[in-house]
């Protein structure tokens, strides 16, 4: 086992949480042992991912052994800068969410916690797997595994509402999965092996009709998880899940898997130039801007806190998609960095929502007046994260938006800059009233005191978000990873911005 851990770290990083899922099932009777499994696996996984970081930062990649799945197509993992970035976000946040989950699930006395933690571990395995996937089939395997592992989590509460939400989730994601499968099989008939290559894998001279068809299927397949409108319907419905699920999966793992997939497809399957030649980038950009505007507007109408955040997520994801569509180095780097930035910010927001619900059983925005005085740490983190989401300088949301905007300007697309600024304003106006009411209006009702198992994780992610905004390369170097991935995709042709 140790030899395996040393020799094949990308695979080991996937298997650790897979093994944890099985182990959690076995020791489910003893909650303490079960939680120890989760933490142990989380720490080992993070360690494994971090151990590959120096190589990747130096411009190398860490590859796993190839296991033949279909003659000519292998199960193959490779830690490259983009994958590394996503894997780091996912494994860090898994650890944080695990601490939070234990507090949340125990405080709320939720049933069937064993199944919950096992599915959670499975989800993280799938996420790491698709982050490191080196070819299309591997990506697809983990993409579908992620769908399946999330399904029980959405349905966790077993209420008719939860089951309806999970059904909707499945219908959307499985349909998308079939479109993606068709796209992948088609791609395989053009490129044997379907291996991701920075700058695009397609051979020269693929007719533009084929590019359009293939790209359309890919966008359809990935756009559901990335919640591009009008494929976003499942995300608000899936908010019936327990809050940690919404936090990690519907703010980080699942939706980011979609956005990450779009970055992979744009940069490593087609290549920016191929898409620009046929004009497919305009389609993607159009979808993204529409989504940003409409989702931001739609967020106003929601008074349920988690659902409002779901629409905010939909808008934020489309920043990443927009960055991919713009396709310059700066825009791509901004989009990739936004995976990390939005991850830390949004998980903070969701954990705040969960903490509020646990202590006060409130989930409607109109009931939150004055709660900031009763739960100062939680609402402090909430305020910080809201500012980050709106793209205030010195917070990470600003860095990604700046880069995407810069990229848009360099290609002369001013309209995108306007959209970015406008949506920032919308963000402010649908999040800040909550903060204002929480701190500056009189509290009503009683709220139990904040418990550390909930406040420590959310304060930690808020702090990381703050640090990332001030020094984006702090710690693991998310920003460097994003730049290194973006330059490898575009080939440094039109570099610019903040290296």
């Amino acid at each position, binding site marked *: 086992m140790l030899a395996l851990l040393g020799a094949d770290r990308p695979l080991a990083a996937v298997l650790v949480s897979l093994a944890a899922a099985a182990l959690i099932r076995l020791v489910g009777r003893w909650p303490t042992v079960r939680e120890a499994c989760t933490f142990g696996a989380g720490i080992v996984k993070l360690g494994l991912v971090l151990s590959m970081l120096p190589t990747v930062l130096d411009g190398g990649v860490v590859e796993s052994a190839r296991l033949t799945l*279909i003659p000519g197509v292998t199960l193959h993992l490779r830690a490259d800068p983009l994958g590394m970035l996503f894997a780091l976000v996912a494994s860090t946040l898994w650890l944080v969410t695990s601490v939070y989950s234990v507090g949340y699930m125990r405080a709320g006395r939720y049933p069937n916690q064993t199944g919950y933690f096992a599915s959670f571990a499975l989800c993280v395995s799938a996420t790491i797997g698709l982050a490191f996937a080196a070819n299309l089939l591997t990506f697809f395997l983990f993409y579908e*595994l992620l769908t399946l592992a999330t399904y029980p989590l959405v349905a966790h509460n077993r209420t008719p509402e939860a089951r309806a939400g999970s059904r909707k989730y499945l219908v959307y994601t*499985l349909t998308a999965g079939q479109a993606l499968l068709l796209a992948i099989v088609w791609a395989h008939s053009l490129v044997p092996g379907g291996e991701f290559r920075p700058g695009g894998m397609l051979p020269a001279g693929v007719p533009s009709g084929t590019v359009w068809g293939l790209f359309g299927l890919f966008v359809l397949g990935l756009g559901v998880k990335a919640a591009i409108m009008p494929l976003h319907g499942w995300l608000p419905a899936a908010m019936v899940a327990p809050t940690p699920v919404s936090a990690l999966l519907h703010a980080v793992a699942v939706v980011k898997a979609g956005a990450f997939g779009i970055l992979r497809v744009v940069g490593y399957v087609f290549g920016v130039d191929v898409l620009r030649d046929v004009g497919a980038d305009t389609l993607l950009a159009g979808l993204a801007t529409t989504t940003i505007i409409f989702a931001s507007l739609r967020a106003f109408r929601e008074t349920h806190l988690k659902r409002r955040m779901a629409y905010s997520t939909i808008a934020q994801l489309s920043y990443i998609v927009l960055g991919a569509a713009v396709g310059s180095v700066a825009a791509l780097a901004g989009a990739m960095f936004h995976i990390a930035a939005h991850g830390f910010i949004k998980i903070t927001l969701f954990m705040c929502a969960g903490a509020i619900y646990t202590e006060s059983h409130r989930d409607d925005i109109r009931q939150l007046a004055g709660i900031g005085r009763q739960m100062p740490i939680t609402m402090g983190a909430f305020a910080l994260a809201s500012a980050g989401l709106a793209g205030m300088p010195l917070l990470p949301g600003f860095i990604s938006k700046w880069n995407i905007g810069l990229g848009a300007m360099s290609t002369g697309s001013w309209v995108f800059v306007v959209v970015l600024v406008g949506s920032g304003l919308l963000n402010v106006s649908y999040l800040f009233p909550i903060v204002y009411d929480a701190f500056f209006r009189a509290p009503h009702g009683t709220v139990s005191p904040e418990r550390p198992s909930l406040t420590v994780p959310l304060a930690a992610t808020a702090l990381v978000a703050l640090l990332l905004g001030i020094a984006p390369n702090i710690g693991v170097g998310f920003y460097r990873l994003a730049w290194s991935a973006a330059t490898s995709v575009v080939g440094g042709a039109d570099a610019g911005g903040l290296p």
Partner: protein
Amino acid sequence: MTQHLPILIVLCPLAAALVVPLVARVSARAARALTMLATLSSLVCAVAALRVALREGDWHYHLGGWAPPWGIEYVVDPLGGGMAVIVALLATLVSLYAGPHVRGLSSLRGAAFDSLFLLLTTGLLGIALTGDLFNLYVFLEVSSLAAYALLASGGERAVVATFRYALIGTIAASFYLLGLGYLYALTGTLNMADLAIQLEAVPPGSAMTVGIVLLVVGLAIKMAVFPLHGWMPDAYTYAPPPVTMFIAAVMSKVSAYALIRVLFFVLPAGDAVETARAVLSWVAVGGVLAGSILALAQTDVRRMLVYSSVGQMGYIVLGLSIGNAAALTGALLHVVGHAAAKGCLFGAIGSLPRQTVQAEIGGLAGAARRAPLAMAAFTIAALSLVGLPPTAGFFSKWYLLRGALDADAWLFAVVLLVSSLLGAVYFFRVLEQVYFVPDPSAPDTDVPSPASPPSWRMVVPVLTLGAAVLLIGLFNGVLVSSVIQHALPEL
């Protein structure tokens, strides 16, 4: 002894079928043991023979020492040998699974059950191994007759359905026989290999066309392809669980095998075969869609599974009507994967306590707590039929899609994907009940209730098949490159 391996595969269950009723008069336990021993030794022989065939090339065994075309030969090649291994494996598992069912019968009826089950196995193994088209007819009828009797043991509703099955099956067999007569009149031989050579020299004409059409139609009816599946739902739903498990898993697969054998290894490539394949492709599309839609409309799980079979057989037919290497690989992999998955599904449902089985899908509420292992296997098999990775069903779908795209048959690709989605709808409807709806009769706790778990004799085969579905998926590359690739016809 080893030089007789090919015939031993068929003889083991045949001999046991004759002896079991006698042994049962002395000891019912011994009769059971003999049944299991016979299927197991058949499996061992089949695996050994297949290994030899893969290592040293096709193994032609001349029955009684008479060389073809005068004598009957048995051929162990990757296709037939592989099929025999699947049948023998399922038979071995089902003979274990049938334990609790047979113990519930009187010793006479129990012996009859085992004897018929062994005869059915004999027939199916014979179809897989024979190199003679008339011999194939005889085995087809041996297996059908045993199947009629077994299916009819499920009560009055099953009897009516079985009678209809017997009529349709006989029509199919007669068509097959008539077609065979035409080919025999043209060539004067019944040996498959010899016939293939002789037919090459025969100029295409109406006699050949009629013969081919009759042969193909006969086998297609035996496969219960849409729209000739009408007898299946009642017969399978009311038959005893081991019978349904075995028949649903392998019987239609063996007919599919016979169709592949005839279409690709006996009949000469030409207009008639092309036309037959074109017609089959539309039958397949109809079957895939109709099966999935009808499955959606069912409220009884077993009926739902039957209609899902109608759709899944459509996949196989679609693969062989597309007919390129990728599509045929997909069809053959689907034969293997679907046999394991459908056996697992019916086995898992049959292993639940009787009162659950009579109920509708709603009656499965909370089944995951009562029978966690069986339901875990059920879930894996269901995912395979939906075609989700990393199960066997996903990879066969991959090859089929690849084949469809290679042949520019976009419509077929879309049909495959749509039926996957419909499959997801009807299977997740069941899985939701199994896992997420609390059992109305039991308190909702984290601890599984100890009340009457299924017998291990039923759980072990079901789990084995569930694991097989997963392993076939993960190691399909090995399976394809070491067996299925060699089983493909030269295209």
